[in-house]
């Protein structure tokens, strides 16, 4: 069965480019692209929510139906 991928939304108008989400993702899913955080490898995401919990700026949302 095909794995259903989570949805990671990065709200650029809130993101302040602090690197926290990128640095502490246990699966190296995210990267900085220019000023903002961006998704590099969605396949690897385990929906642990660490990035969403730690973003100081309400700029990242992980949804997993």
């Amino acid at each position, binding site marked *: 069965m095909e794995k259903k991928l989570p949805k990671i939304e990065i709200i650029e108008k809130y993101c*302040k480019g*602090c*690197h*926290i989400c990128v640095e502490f993702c246990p699966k190296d899913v995210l990267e900085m692209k220019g000023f903002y955080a961006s998704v590099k490898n969605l396949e690897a995401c385990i929906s642990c929510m660490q990035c969403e*919990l730690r973003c*100081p700026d309400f700029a990242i949302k992980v*949804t997993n139906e």
Partner: protein
Amino acid sequence: MAFDYDKWIRPGKLPHIWCPGCGHGIVMKGLIRAMDTLNLKKEETAVVSGIGCASRLPGYIDCCTLHTAHGRAAAFATGVKMAKPEMNVILVGGDGDGTAIGGNHFIHACRRNINMTYIIMNNYIYGMTGGQFSPCTPTGHKASTTPYGNPDPGFDIAKLAIGAGATFVARGTAFHANQIDKLIAEAIQHKGFSVVEILDDCPTTYGRRNKYKSVIEMMNRLKDVAVPVKAAEKMTAEQLQGKVLTGVLYKDDTKPEYTAEYAKVIERAQAAK
């Protein structure tokens, strides 16, 4: 599932004013999750602050809020709680606001054991005004007012609160985001004065002066110094050197709570008429 913070944020208020990587935003999110888990009603919840970057927090939250004078959150909050004891009253602020100019209000709120919760964001500095040292700045560290290193020993906020009479005292860090809401929720549910210290970061005025190369380095420090109270029980004094305990540090359910005691005073006064 993504958490819906929007229902607790005043429309149009984001992005907030805090610097990139400032932990105050992480604490605010923890508070929102705690209020949401406990199903607090907005009209029955007051978030009260003094002055500072941390004290800007109530401006973003969609419930009853008060942004008061520097160090005076406890005084205003006490007024709210005495007038409306049924309200959930939550104080928020920084280490400077709470332990320097507001230190006196802080210890007396603890002494009274009034049923309110105080979330103190300890970034070891006066962030808002450019990085003057606070009573929580560690010895030897640099601030704009201690360019050769701070000669003072810093306060241990949790010990101060316990010593002054607070009946629930907990500590977390901005790195351990997942724990913040749990500590705050437990503190709000406690009947008495509860204090939650969150070790925080101020990359802009503290990190920069104290040779932290980045927000990430500051977050890693929080990760490394924190030891959960349970884990600490199995560690030697040597292993605990330089570490900071996190979790619920103190809880006493036996001490009389102030609004309940005051209600008895009212009864006695009315009976005496």
